[in-house]
């Protein structure tokens, strides 16, 4: 299995960020983005829905639907170009998911998750390969361990558990990355805007 994967060569090249639904992300936020620029903030299309959402705190109440800002750390090997499918899928309507491509989910330290929240993400999802399918043999296991730490830190900070997710791709019942992201986005939409939005 592992050999097969390796034989298929380098992961598919793809643009750093994809348009999702009607709204465009500004690009993948660099995990170590300088403190002066906030890649999450600079998405122009966010402004209106965010204000509406803050006013109505959460779902459709005030008319305009709350569009959460999602940061998705996606391993280059497991997504398989699927975000494009998910992007135009039924549920994604208007939400900009910011993809941060990593070579392995094992790269995503707790600090990267915290950075996304610090920049104002409403939800953060880490996607890796299914158990036993990691291109680097054990990167996803490391992620599973680190994720426990991320979860604890996020919970100490008082952020809702639903804002943070780890998912192996393909997801449950063979769900595509796009479907997983849609479902996660819906969850976060229900939780409402993060108290860390700037």
């Amino acid at each position: 299995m592992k050999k097969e994967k390796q034989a298929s060569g380098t992961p598919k090249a793809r643009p750093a960020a994809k348009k999702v639904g009607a709204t465009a992300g500004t690009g993948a936020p660099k995990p170590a983005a300088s403190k002066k620029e906030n890649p999450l903030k600079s998405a122009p299309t966010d402004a209106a829905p965010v204000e509406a959402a803050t006013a109505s705190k959460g779902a459709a109440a005030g008319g305009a639907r709350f569009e959460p800002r999602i940061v998705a750390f996606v391993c280059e090997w497991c997504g398989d170009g699927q975000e494009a499918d998910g992007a135009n899928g039924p549920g994604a309507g208007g939400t900009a998911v910011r993809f941060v491509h990593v070579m392995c989910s094992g790269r995503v330290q707790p600090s990267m998750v915290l950075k996304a929240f610090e920049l104002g993400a409403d939800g953060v999802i880490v996607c890796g390969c299914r158990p036993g399918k990691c291109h680097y043999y054990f990167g996803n296991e490391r992620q599973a361990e680190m994720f426990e730490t991320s979860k604890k830190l996020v919970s100490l900070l008082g952020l809702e558990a639903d804002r943070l997710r780890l998912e192996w791709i393909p997801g449950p019942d063979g769900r595509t990355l796009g479907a997983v992201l849609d479902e996660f986005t819906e969850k976060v939409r229900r939780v409402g805007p993060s108290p860390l939005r700037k």
Partner: protein
Amino acid sequence: MKELIEAIKLTGARLCLDCGKCTAVCPVARTNGSFSPRKTVANAVAGDEDALKDDTIWHCLTCRLCSERCPSDVDYVDLTRLARADAYKDGKEAQCSHGSAFQLLMRIMTAPELKQQRMGWVTPDLKIAEKSDWLYFVGCIPYFDAFFEKLNVNTSEIARSTVKLLNAVGIEPVVMPDERCCGHDLLWGGDIENFKMLARHNVEKIKATGATKIVSACPECVTTLKVYYPEFVGALPFEVMHLTELLDKHVASGALKFRKNSKRVTFQDPCRLGRFLNVYEQPRNLLKAICGDSFKDMRRSRNSSVCCGTSGWMNCGIHSKAIQTGRLTEARRTGSDLLATACAKCKIHFMCAMNDTGFPEESKIEVEDLAVLLASSLVK
């Protein structure tokens, strides 16, 4: 540059005799040949603009050992603090360990609307009050436990022990569910803006509790509140002290008694507790109250004590590890089985160093916080 000239004035750097004592004692200079406080001071005074701007300003542990030795009273640590604040404004930052996780936690904690869930360490046996003259400032202990679970640092036990000890001397302290990091590491990392936000938040919340006496088991919290909050946010309407200062009084008066044991123990003076707050005797008195004559100081102790090797989660690397290995070896050489410290971070750094593959077996020693040792020896 104006700020830096001001910093040189404020810290007495112009009085430098170029004697080199600072570099001779500096634990960083011993392991990292490219670092020299003397050179930095001498060059800065000579008008070299880069002296206080290059990367070496982040190497210092801010342990204050050099200032202790300086015949001219040059405050190198403060010079470093001011230089860092200036560099930070220019967009420079320290190389922070753990991907800056702790700095991020601190910056997240500046958000006013945050509702932390940080009280998980409180067990039913601990007596905590809604209203009291006393407030226990916990510090980042809950976060340390979450982050360093693998090292098994069990820092929450320090918090529980602190409350047990306070209860034992008749104090039921207030503990704030909305306490934020004191900001120590942001202050020393040059991020003054966020430091001030944390300071203002904490001062306001403490004021709202009505407490007038603040006690903490963390020397960094105590130093930051006591020494630096007034400098940045004005005079405080409360008194701040370290747990050992309070307990020592109660032991001296005979009100607090411990079961004796014969463990051989030595003590690591945390930089902030010793050289910043001048608390040297109190922790020793307390240790002697539990282990009597089997307490033994290291060769370099009190104001000559060597830092635990990392400060503000900055620049941890081979130099830190070398300092830690050296210090643990020194502790072991006293013949002690246990190294007591009074700072959660000292404990974390030492335990991390010993966890490394290749750490010399003969230098391994148990490390425990003084509060935990004391609470487990309380006479019921």
